[in-house]
């Protein structure tokens, strides 16, 4: 027999996930605008791999396929991984990353709702540690005068890893603005000199700053639609801004300004789409603020001092580890227990 309540409001999991996917669209559109359609191939590969792995794992675990394949969560993971790796990567890179993310980081823990780590970021971390070389070849923005490859040539490279005769991969690609900043700082240049390099735009990397802005736009939609809690992006971006601001004030030659941090790397997509994954983030308001601040701090530390150019992914999974404890220690007082000690 059914138990009360007998009525429900109908906002289902798949609709929530779908709205998150919609919110990614402006960023993806700008990505295509500035860097060409190769990213779409990457997304298609990752999504296919995600759904295939999800189906395989559900089959192996003897779980129904339809409700889980149609909840869009695997799809979202695929898209996020595709967006965090270079579009001009061999086809197996997004496939391996996504397959690992779905199979190990998600399904070994019991599938949707049970994974302690953000699957997309686990996929990314595995790739950057296992294939650091392949992960550094980013496309240059199309208007930068490089001899950009045609889409056909890009596809040819993605699937066969061979370039048209006489072309060098290094000449076609560049490292990310954050990576360049780190390398050049090591070589003794100052921040302002580095930012005069042609790959930089007004705020951060040329093109990529606009993509980040696109993700921010989508994120603001999610905030307004109350799909994601406001505490997470605010605490994360706020901490990143404050820390980079303070360091930039003290030593502008060696520390990039706050807006540079905001609009480069995965800061925006991280703040609105990755940290806000409800399954792997805290559930209490206080906990979310702590989580966001911790992620901001770790991102800044890794960017400023660490060995990797960007720290959002590692900050995310490091903070994911703390979620059970944060949740346990920030339980709010219930009705009628205010003022009493727990």
């Amino acid at each position: 027999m059914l138990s009360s309540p007998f009525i429900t409001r109908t906002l289902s999991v798949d609709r929530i996930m779908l709205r998150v996917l919609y919110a990614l669209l402006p960023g993806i559109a700008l990505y295509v605008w500035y860097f060409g359609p190769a990213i779409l191939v990457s997304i298609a590969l990752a999504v296919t791999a995600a759904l295939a792995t999800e189906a395989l794992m559900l089959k192996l675990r003897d779980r129904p396929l339809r409700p889980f394949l149609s909840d869009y969560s695997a799809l979202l993971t695929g898209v996020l991984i595709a967006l965090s790796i270079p579009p001009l990567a061999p086809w197996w890179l997004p496939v391996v990353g996504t397959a690992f993310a779905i199979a190990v980081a998600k399904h070994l823990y019991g599938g949707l709702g049970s994974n302690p780590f953000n699957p997309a970021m686990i996929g990314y971390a595995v790739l950057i540690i296992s294939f650091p070389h392949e992960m550094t070849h980013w496309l240059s923005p199309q208007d930068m005068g490089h001899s950009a490859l045609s889409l056909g040539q890009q596809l040819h490279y993605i699937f066969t890893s061979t370039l048209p005769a006489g072309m060098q991969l290094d000449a076609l690609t560049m490292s990310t603005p954050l990576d360049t900043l780190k390398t050049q700082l090591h070589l003794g240049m100052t921040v302002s000199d580095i930012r005069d390099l042609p790959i930089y735009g007004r705020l951060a990397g040329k093109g990529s700053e606009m993509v980040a802005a696109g993700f921010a736009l989508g994120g603001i939609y999610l905030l307004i639609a109350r799909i994601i809690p406001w505490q997470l992006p605010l605490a994360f971006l706020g901490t990143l801004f404050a820390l980079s601001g303070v360091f930039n004030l003290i030593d502008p030659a060696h520390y990039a300004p706050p807006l540079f941090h905001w609009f480069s790397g995965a800061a925006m997509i991280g703040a609105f789409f990755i940290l806000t994954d409800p399954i792997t983030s805290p559930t209490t308001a206080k906990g979310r603020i702590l989580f966001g601040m911790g992620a901001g701090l770790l991102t800044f530390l890794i960017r400023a001092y660490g060995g990797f150019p960007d720290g959002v992914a590692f900050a995310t999974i490091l903070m994911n580890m703390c979620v059970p404890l944060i949740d346990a220690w920030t339980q709010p007082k219930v009705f009628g227990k205010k003022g009493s000690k727990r």
Partner: protein
Amino acid sequence: MIKLRSFHGGVHPPTHKKESTQSPIMAAPLPAQLIIPFRQHAGEAAKPVVQVGERVLKGQLIGEPVGPISSSVHAPTSGTITAIELQQIAHPSALPDLCATLVSDGLEEWGVRQTLSYRQLSSDELQKHLRRCGIVGLGGAVFPSDMKLRHPTVVNTLVINGAECEPYITCDDMLMRERAEGIVRGIEILRHALGTDAVLIGIEDNKPQAITAMQRAVDESSHPFKVVAVPTLYPGGSAKHLIKVLTGVEVPSGKLPTDVGVQCYNVATAYAAHRAVEHGEPLVSRIVTVTGNVEQPRNYEALIGTPFSELVELSVAKADTNRYIMGGPMMGVELPAVNVPLVKASNCVIAASDVLFPPPPPAMPCIRCTRCAQACPVELQPQELYWFAKSHNFGKAQEYDLFDCIECGACAYVCPSSIPLVQYYRYAKSEIRARDHEKRAADLARERHEFRQFRIEREKQEKAERLAQKERAAAEAKAKAAATATVIATPVDPSADTDDTQQMRIDAALARAKEQAATTPPKNTETLSPAQRAEIEAIEERRAHIHELAADAGADDEPPKHSQGN
């Protein structure tokens, strides 16, 4: 104007109250047969005080309260008691409970009605009267109203709950519209018994007609009561939440409203108190909403014990109706059958179909989106409670304040994964209660076992001492005997049964029993005189009664619940 507060969370389900407020309250026709459960209130079930075959008058006591938290049950009409037996009642378990069957004679002949002038009465006398009249909270929790008048602390505010926040239910709304004067008189009686000054009548602002009617009645009565329109927000009719909204006081967890100087009664309870005191009528009928998938949704004044099927027939259920819900869609229970009787707690019955209440889609895993936490009026973390209840981690669930949950269903209402959250909480709660019960039983058993061992030890010692004494005595006697040189046989002590003789006796009894079993049918009462048999029967009955008491004692340790404002 008083300042209203708010509480955390809450939801706005579609109210569907219009349907059943179009026509006035109608007296339901007298059914041919009534089924009156003896457990219609929180606490101990009432004890039957009538015999099968006895003729009873309307309002006659048929079940008397047992123990402090209990209430009386009365015959709702005049007629003959034809059975006192286990029958199916409105309970999610579909298990039967003790009920009286009353075949009405159609005369509606009242018994003695004792009217009182409450102003001359003390709180104590009023309490006794309410208990005698079987007045319980009619908001849903059916807690005996007399218990709520008993309070060790000063109560300075009386909150009257006319919020009626559950969708579909309109019985309080219609009662306030049509019988505001009686309610106000009842409130004055309760206020007098409690000795409070301030009275706040909280009504949700989606019932403007009820607010107007109550305001008019209050004005006419010239009592200084305040009628307050409170914002419509489910579950604003929960007693503790209404108190928070009206007075700003948060009743501490595990405490009663009286501990913070507030008491809360439902409007229907106030009306019942008025009928009981000023008309001498015990609680034998109530207003009940019949709505949902029916042709004529409306409110009825029906006798307690009326089978729901009769009411549904009056309102004409539509063809695709496939189940019935007692109470509202948020907290109600599905009826095991439509012919179970109306009880004091029944404020509404909803005819349901799969179109009206579509069965929920299959539950998906929880994605910790915390929409439930945002909706929870008690500020719990439902997603954590669910996680613990699901994995049978009851200790943790209790740590996360499972027992503060009022089962209002707001969490399950908003859950995007369609998880039956409330059912998980109920499951966890009843498991924990059962375990607590087992634990107490184990502690008791340990105590008894230890006492038994202590007793055996003591007896052994005493026996040894007695033996030693006897030996001494024997030795002395021997010495004496030797001295007097007279031979006297030592008398055998009858209490000093040796093991051998005992064994022999048992064997003998065994043989007798065997013989009996072989020669005569096992009944050892065959050859008795009728007088003896009657005596044995009386003894048997007493014994059965003792059995029942023993079985019941300690079986129901559930603490009284104060959820939906009573």
